């Protein structure tokens, strides 16, 4: 099952031209810690179109410069998404549910880059893709990202991020009606942040 597939392909693929950095971006960049290694917990709530009950899940995530992103859903069931320079792998428990290799699918590296930027709050990189509108004051910031490319905007909708030294929440509203809220907590940076089992997976 290749289920990341075209959705994320388009996310990474349809990149717009880089624009001038808006004023808050520079401010926010200055606030962000941008450590080499970053891990923490996430609580996620999804509201799917056509379904009244929200879907709650939680787990851990890691962002390691030069290696990639690890997104470990622990509840309600284990599911791991690993993005590295050369591949994207999804593990359902122990089973490899999906593997996409950069050698076969050239957009893998781009997807990795975008997700890395998103989780580490690297707005400088995201600006090539999104119109960034936001405010920053007193060590806190909030931005709204709207894809420059209309097709991409339609596919992923609007992203809202807020945070301080790290990204604190991500709020995604898709045009299709699905909504996702992610709240990060317990964020640790530096050498001790990555758990041994996570280091093994990265």
């Amino acid at each position, binding site marked *: 099952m290749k289920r990341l597939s075209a959705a994320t392909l*388009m996310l990474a693929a349809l990149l*717009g031209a880089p624009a001038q950095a808006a004023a808050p971006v520079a401010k926010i960049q200055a606030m962000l810690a941008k450590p080499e290694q970053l891990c923490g917990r996430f609580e996620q709530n999804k509201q799917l179109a056509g379904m009244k009950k929200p879907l709650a899940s939680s787990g851990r995530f890691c962002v390691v410069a030069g290696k990639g992103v690890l997104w470990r*859903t622990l509840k309600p069931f284990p599911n791991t998404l690993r993005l590295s320079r050369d591949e994207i792998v999804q593990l359902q428990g122990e089973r490899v*549910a*999906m593997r996409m290799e950069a050698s076969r699918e050239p957009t893998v590296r781009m997807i990795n880059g975008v997700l890395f930027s998103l989780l580490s709050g690297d707005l400088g990189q995201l600006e090539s893709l999104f119109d960034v509108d936001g405010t920053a004051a007193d060590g806190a910031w909030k931005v709204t990202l709207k894809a420059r490319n*209309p097709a991409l905007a339609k596919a992923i909708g609007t992203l809202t991020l807020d945070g301080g030294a790290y990204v604190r929440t991500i709020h995604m509203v898709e045009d299709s009606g*699905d909504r996702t809220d992610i709240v990060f907590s317990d964020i640790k940076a530096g050498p001790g942040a990555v758990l041994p089992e996570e280091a093994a997976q990265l």
Partner: protein
Amino acid sequence: MTTHRRLALAWALVVCLLAGHNAWLWLGKRIVPDTDILALLPAGERDPVLQRSFTHMVDSAQQRVVVLVGAASWPDAMRAADAFQAVLRPHADLLRADAGADAQAAWLDGFQSHATLLVGAADERALRTQPPSYWTENALARAYSAFGGPKLGSFRDDPFGLFAGWTQERAGETPVRPRDGRLYVGGEGREYVLLTYTLAPSAFALSAQRRAVPLLDAAAAAARRAMPAAEVIEAGVVLHAAAAGNQASSEVETIGLGSLAGIVVLTWLTFRSVRPIGLILLAIGIGFLGALSVCWLLFGRIHLLTLVFGASLIGVAQDYGLYFLCHRLGAARETGSVVLLRRLLPGLGLTLLAAVIGYMGLALTPFPGLRHMAVFSALGLVFAWLTVVCWFPQLIGPGTLRRGWLARRYRALVVRWPRVTARPGALAVLALLAAVTAAGWSQLRTDDDIRSLQSSPARLVQDQIKLGRLLDAPTPVQYYLVRGASDDEVLQREEALKRRLDPLVAQGHLSGYQALSNWVPSARTQAERLALLDGRLLGDTGPLADLARALGADDGWAAATRAHLRARAQPLTPDAFLRTPASEPWRHLWLGDVDGIHASIVALRGMRYASIPVLAGAADGLPGVQWVDKVGGISAVLGRYRTYMGAVVLGAYALVFLALLPRYRGRTWRVLAPTAAASALTLAILGLAGQHLQLFHVLALMLLLGVGVDYGIFMQEDPQRGDDAPWLAVALSAASTLLSFGLLALSGTPALRAFGLTMLLGTALVWLAAPCFTVTRKERHATSVYA
């Protein structure tokens, strides 16, 4: 005298009409000769559907220029590509940049109401084999996943990720990806920007080549200035056409000017005047114009190959003029030109008759191309001959020409020339030559492969190969043609073919295929798929119901989702698909309705040449599926033309023999023997030299017959070996044939080289052999007794 003058005036009127008609054709109607070599196939074998498929595959590619600008890193590649584009941007009237990444933005929009029916091959297999839990688990993971989610729409649009899998499978048909608003392809350690341009004027227009090629060179240079390590790979028909044109024009300059200079010097040395050249060119020119006019009136079209072969008429048409001029030179002052002509008319008439008979043999073949050539050539000769007969006596009086240095020295040679007799020495030489001929013939091989005629520079060919590899582009000349009574039957037959091709992909014979049925399954497949989805996923107790429970969804969610998915399962037709922007890169695959037959193309990516027999065999037994190999097809046409032409040459010898028999009786073999011997020996030398025999060698042998018979007749018409007029006419004609056609042996174009080499050897040998078969008046009386 006055009769002839009236004749000359009448002919002038005809020539004016011809000139007017030609001016109207070329300048008014702007006719263009056919270039498709398959148009030379017999009409019955020409298949409109096949023709349409060639048009779809080749013609669209003909005007395109594809460029890859690469560097070790993507930003460097972009910088180099920007420099490249900047050079071409002001010249959009010539090379227009094609819409790039933006055109692909909305490509999925057209599929929304059919998405449920679109399932990739791997998922379809999984649907048949995997247990329900597999689908439930996958859908659950999709529901909870933050980033792997269904960005093509909402979760309920594609809970099992089947449509997403299908879009990825489609994206896999090309390695090209949009990136930063450009088209990107990677490979061999480099990142490339893909740029495509459409050439506005025809790729074969000289003016377009002269502008486009330097512009592309300048753009490539700019890219390398911006990024010294940048690699620029270019491909396009215009580049090959320009390379061929450059070669041709430089050859025209060297070979053409060389031969013209040679002929001028030769004529001056013989006649102390260049006027004869002007007159002979006039005769040839009128022959050419006349042939073209009448051919156009008869057939309404003209093929380039007909013109090329027709141009070779010069070799034969000049003989009539030279024959007259040489006799004028030798004749007494008191003999008037009209009287002289009357004396020469039997010989002249026979040379024309022999040549026309020879060429008419071509008209008996079933090939329209050869028939056109036959009519064109015969008409050309008739017009040139009439020009000589009607005008030359009026234009050349008894005192016009004076014997030049060459004419004086050359006459002495003929007396001492060896002759074929029954003496032991002569027989020994003949036996030796026969042995050489036999040895050479045993070495002779044939090769009709069109690729051996290709003469594009190695760099262009390498670029083309590398570009094809990086882009994983399908070959435009080998593919499957699928036909059916309806659109849907075509799709069904494509699907049957694809089931055969899948194992071949797995075995590495090809890397994949492009087909419209990849996008639009046949109605039967769509119905089967919907039934499969209903049975395996959407049933009341299937994975969808399990998913609703696992998600804790409210009552009715499963039923609503099922209804939603079924609403997105409307039948998709080729017509509907072809109206969507997503179909743009694939439209050429669909031929649609051609005279009541529906047809499509299945194109092959990453095809190995060695696998052609395997791929050709894959179509066996599949109704409506035809393997098309245009390269092989052209080679086969060339091969059949070669065989037919060979038979025609032999038949022409027989016919010419019969035509000459009434006049020459027992000496008839002496007319034909020099040409026959020279042709046989030429073939033997080609064999010994390791040349592979192909159509253009045989075309040259046909021309050689036309030229050689003239020499034979000239030598037999004037039996006195002391009379140097025929001997001089043969020498001049042969020398100018050698200078005009023989020098083509130096050409870089393989077809012309083959033609030229055969003419070079053949004409030289006929020239040497012709006097060997003459007889003295005494001998002539003796043979007459036998005859």
